[in-house]
């Protein structure tokens, strides 16, 4: 009991250390640069306690729940040996985690506003909603496809940089042809698709697959799924902007 408490306290201290740079930055700018007192200091301090406790619980849960879960599923799929089942799982995981992602919903709503202001679509709410929805489905499809390709790559042991370099070249090639309004959103869409719960799960899945399959190295083959999942949305969103 006492050792468990000591462990928890050590984790709490670690989380506090992780947050120290933010605290110092904000305090420095508030006090030295802007020279203002903190508004609602008690609320800020209270919130910080929440952040530290939350981060500690999250990291604890990562090691207990998300990592073993991703790893177990990878092993189970490898044992089962059905390629189709594994690829279907990868696609569904990518599509499912992305389609309901709150950050993505916010970005696509913003994109619809820009598109209607620019006169690409009609200015009414209905046109905006349907534009935002199709954009969201496109991004979710692209993430599903990214995980499918990424998992297939792990099985085959192909180097990730072939895919990433080809993807970058494609982004560079189509950027000049995409409407200027969509470029910023397309670039940002790559960043918002990978949520805090998806990342540990997908990483554990990739590394687990690479560890289970003979001849694969977890470092060179296990990582890379996240990179693909942040690349394909950029391409798909720009192509979407060119077509619509």
């Amino acid at each position: 009991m006492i050792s468990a408490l000591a462990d928890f306290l050590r984790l709490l201290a670690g989380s506090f250390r992780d947050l120290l740079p933010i605290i110092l930055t904000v305090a420095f700018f508030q006090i030295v640069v802007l020279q203002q007192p903190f508004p609602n200091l008690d609320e800020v301090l209270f919130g910080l306690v929440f952040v530290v406790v939350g981060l500690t619980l999250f990291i604890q849960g990562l090691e207990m729940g998300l990592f073993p879960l991703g790893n177990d599923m990878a092993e189970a799929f490898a044992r089962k040996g059905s390629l189709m089942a594994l690829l279907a799982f990868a696609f569904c995981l990518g599509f499912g985690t992305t389609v309901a992602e709150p950050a993505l919903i916010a970005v696509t709503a913003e994109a619809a506003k820009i598109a209607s202001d620019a006169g690409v679509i009609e200015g009414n709410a209905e046109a905006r909603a349907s534009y935002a929805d199709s954009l969201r489905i496109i991004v979710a499809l692209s993430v599903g496809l990214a995980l499918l390709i990424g998992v297939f790559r792990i099985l085959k042991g192909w180097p990730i940089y072939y895919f990433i370099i080809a993807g970058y070249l494609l982004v560079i090639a189509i950027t000049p042809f995409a409407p200027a309004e969509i470029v910023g959103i397309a670039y940002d869409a790559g960043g918002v698709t990978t949520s805090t719960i998806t990342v540990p799960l997908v990483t554990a899945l990739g590394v687990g697959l690479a560890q289970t399959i003979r001849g694969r190295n977890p470092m060179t083959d296990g990582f890379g799924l996240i990179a693909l999942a942040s690349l394909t949305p950029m391409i798909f969103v720009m192509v979407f902007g060119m077509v619509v």
Partner: protein
Amino acid sequence: MAFFTLFMETAYATFADVLPIAIVLLGFQIGVLRQKPRNLSRILIGLLYVLLGLTFFLVGLEKALFPVGKAMARQLTNPEFIGVAPDATVVEWASFLWVFAFAWMIGFATTIAEPSLIAVALKAEEIAGGSITAWGLRLAVALGVSVGVTIGAYRIVSGDSLGLYIMAGYAIVITQTFFASKTIIPLAYDSGGVTTSTVTVPVLAALGLGLAIAVPGRSPLLDGFGLIAFASVFPIISVLGYDIVSTWFLRQKKLKPENTEEEVSQ
């Protein structure tokens, strides 16, 4: 009471976010794999910790960091603070020095606290067998975000093309890929995608928007976006760069005679 409402709303949003993942996992577990995972109860407790932890984390951010960070981004980009006349059409980039300093520091600070990056760094440390430490990776990534966000802020002020900057970043990444160790490349690429999530995005979005409004001639819609893209390209450059430099130093060390002797005596 308002606090409790916020907590319940955040908890609900987190659970709603997890629901599709849970459905996919359960569906394949029951329909395809048809077996119970080992230590099921431990995994479930762990998942509960993750949900509860994220809820606390987000509520705390909403109470502590986001209001202050966003207000700060607004105040630092306020024309009065910068000393820009309201009718100015051109502003020296040097007037924005405090904004760049803020971009640098907040980019670093929010990245160090980013839970997704902590997860990837822990996994990398676990399987790398001592050649990578979680802290080292997080520091390299955070430095990359610092540099990237600062350059991104400069781009909003100067009004240069976003595409051009990002393409230059890609060109550097592609060149570095040819010189970096094969084992670090996938991890470096992944660290670009994980930097921009829970903590970093809201603050950076506020900073980009504030800057685009403050600089004469910038459109918040066209120029306010894009800081996040910088924060995802530059960590790849810094992680690959760290690997290239440290490998080069190791090779230099090995070339010295006393080190070769040591290796022989082992």
